[in-house]
C-alpha cells in the first residue's frame, strides 16, 4: 500500500464516520452492546431487583396505608395508596438511577472505563447503553410493584395503553436521571463523596416533586421548585395514565419534558464522562 493511499484511507475513515447514517448506526450498535452487557449483568444478579423492591413497598403499604383516607393528600381522588402508587414507582426508579453513577466510579477505579474509552464505541453510545441498564432495572422493579399492586387490589385503572405509557415515561425518566448521575460521578473523585452528593440530590428531587403529595398543597416556593423538577412531570404523566386523575391533559408535555431531559443529560454526560479517568 502506498503512503498516499494510506493517507487517503485514513482520511476516508474519519470522513465516513462523520456522515449521519454511519454515526447513527455506530450509536445504535454501541448502545446495544452496552445495553446487552447490562442486561446480562442483571441476569446474574436478579436478587437485586427484589431487595430493591422492598423500600417502595414499605412506602406504599406503611406510609400509604397510614394516610389512606387523607383526601387532601390524594388530591381528592379517594384512596391515597392508589395516588401514591405511581409516585413510589417513580421514586424507586429514581433511587436506582441516581446511585447508578457509583458503578461508573467503580469502573474507573478498576480499569474498565479506560478500556471502554479506547474502543471505537461512541461516547454517547456508552452513556446511553449504561442508561438503558438503569432503565432495564427500573422496568423489572416496576413489574414487581405492579404485580403487588394488582394482588393488593389497589384501585388503579388497568388499561394496556395506560400501563405501557406509564412504563415508557418511567424508563425515559430513569435513563435521564441515570445520565445525571453519570455527570455527577465524573465530577467527584471518590465513592464516599459520591454517596454524599447522591443523597444531597435524591432527597430534594423526591420531596420537591408530586411523588408524595399534589402540587396544590405545597407552599408556593416549593411549588416553583417542583415545576422545575423533571420527576414531577414523570409522576404527573404516570398518574394520568394509571389513574386518569391528573387534570388538564398535559400528557404530551410530560413526555416532551422527560425526552428533552434525557437528551440534554445524555449529551452532557457523554462530554463529562471521558474526563472521569483523569
Amino acid at each position: 500500500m502506498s503512503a498516499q493511499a494510506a493517507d487517503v484511507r485514513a482520511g476516508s475513515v474519519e470522513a465516513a464516520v462523520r456522515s449521519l447514517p454511519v454515526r447513527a448506526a455506530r450509536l445504535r450498535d454501541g448502545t446495544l452492546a452496552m445495553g446487552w452487557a447490562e442486561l446480562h449483568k442483571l441476569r446474574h444478579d436478579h436478587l437485586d431487583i427484589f431487595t430493591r423492591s422492598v423500600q417502595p413497598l414499605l412506602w406504599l403499604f406503611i406510609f400509604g396505608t397510614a394516610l389512606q383516607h387523607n383526601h387532601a393528600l390524594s388530591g381528592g381522588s379517594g384512596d391515597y395508596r392508589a395516588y401514591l402508587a405511581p409516585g413510589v414507582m417513580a421514586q424507586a426508579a429514581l433511587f436506582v438511577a441516581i446511585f447508578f453513577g457509583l458503578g461508573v466510579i467503580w469502573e474507573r477505579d478498576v480499569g474498565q472505563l479506560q478500556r471502554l474509552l479506547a474502543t471505537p464505541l461512541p461516547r454517547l453510545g456508552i452513556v446511553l447503553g449504561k442508561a438503558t441498564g438503569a432503565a432495564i432495572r427500573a422496568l423489572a422493579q416496576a413489574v414487581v410493584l405492579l404485580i403487588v399492586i394488582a394482588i393488593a387490589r389497589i384501585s388503579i385503572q388497568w388499561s394496556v395503553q395506560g400501563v405501557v405509557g406509564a412504563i415508557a415515561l418511567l424508563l425515559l425518566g430513569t435513563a435521564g436521571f441515570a445520565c445525571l448521575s453519570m455527570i455527577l460521578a465524573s465530577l467527584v473523585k471518590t465513592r464516599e463523596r459520591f454517596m454524599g452528593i447522591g443523597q444531597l440530590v435524591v432527597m430534594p428531587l423526591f420531596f420537591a416533586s408530586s411523588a408524595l403529595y399534589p402540587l396544590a398543597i405545597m407552599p408556593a416556593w416549593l411549588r416553583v421548585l417542583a415545576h422545575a423538577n423533571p420527576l414531577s412531570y414523570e409522576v404527573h404523566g404516570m398518574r394520568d395514565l394509571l389513574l386518569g386523575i391528573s387534570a388538564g391533559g398535559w400528557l404530551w408535555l410530560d413526555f416532551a419534558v422527560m425526552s428533552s431531559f434525557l437528551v440534554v443529560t445524555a449529551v452532557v454526560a457523554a462530554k463529562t464522562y471521558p474526563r472521569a479517568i483523569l
Partner: protein
Amino acid sequence: MTALARAEERAERLVLVDGLVVRFGEVEAVAGVSFDVGGGEVFGLLGPNGAGKTTTIRVLTTLLRPTEGSAFVAGHDVVREGLAVRQAIGYVPQAISIDGALTAYENLEFYGRAMGVPRQERRERIEEAVDAMQLASFLDRLGRTLSGGMLRRLEIATALLKQPVVLFLDEPTVGLDPTARRLVWERLELLREEAGTTVLVTTHQMEEAERQCDRIALMDRGRIAALGSPVELRSRFGVPALEDVFTEVTGGRLEEGGSFRDVRASRRRSRRLG
C-alpha cells in the same frame, strides 16, 4: 523530509512518537519522548513507577491529548484520527478491565461487539482468542471469580478479537505469580509467531523485558534515558544485565519512583489479582 516521505515513514512504523510532551498543570509527566516501533516488533517501555510509561500509552491509545509533539499509530494521528486509531488497536490497561459481573464468555462477546466485529465473524474470532489464550476451562465463570493469571489472559483475549495492528499491554504481569507470568508470556510469544502482532508493552520487570522484547526504551522522569536491543544496551554500558543498565542511566533511583497513590494502587491491585 518531504511530506510524502514522512507519510511513507508513518505507514511503515506502526507506532511513531515525536517530541511527545504531556503536562498536568505544573507536572511534566512526559518531557519530550521520541521513538518508533516497526511491524511485528515487541517493544518494551521500561522504568520505575512515575517514569511516564502509562501516560505515554494513554496518549497512544487516544485517552489523553498530548500537550506538545505528535504520535501516530498504524499510520493515524492519535489526535486528529482518534477513531481510526481505536479501531486498529488492542489495549489492556494496567488495572482490571474485565467486568466481574459478567462471565468470561460474556466479556469476550461484549468486547467483540464493542470493537465492531461483525456478528457472523464474532463466534469464530472468540474461539480463536479462546484457543490462543487457553481460556476454555473457565468460560462460564463470572469475572470476579477468576484468578489473576486467568484475568490477564482473558483481557488479552478480548483485545485480540479485532486482530489488532498494535497491541498495547500496560504492565501485563504485575501482581502475577511466576507460573501465571510464564503462561502469559508463553501465549504472547505464540501470538507473535503466528499472527505477527506488534506489541508495545510496559513493565518494570527487567529480566522479563530482557527475555521478551526486541527493543527497549528505558524511561526515567518523563524522558527516554536509553534505547536499543537488550544486547546493544548491555554492551553499550558494559554491564552483564539490563538491571545494571538501568542503574547506570538513572543513578540507581529505581527504588525511589512512585507516589503514595501509585504504590497504594498497585498494592491494592496485586492483592485483588493474587
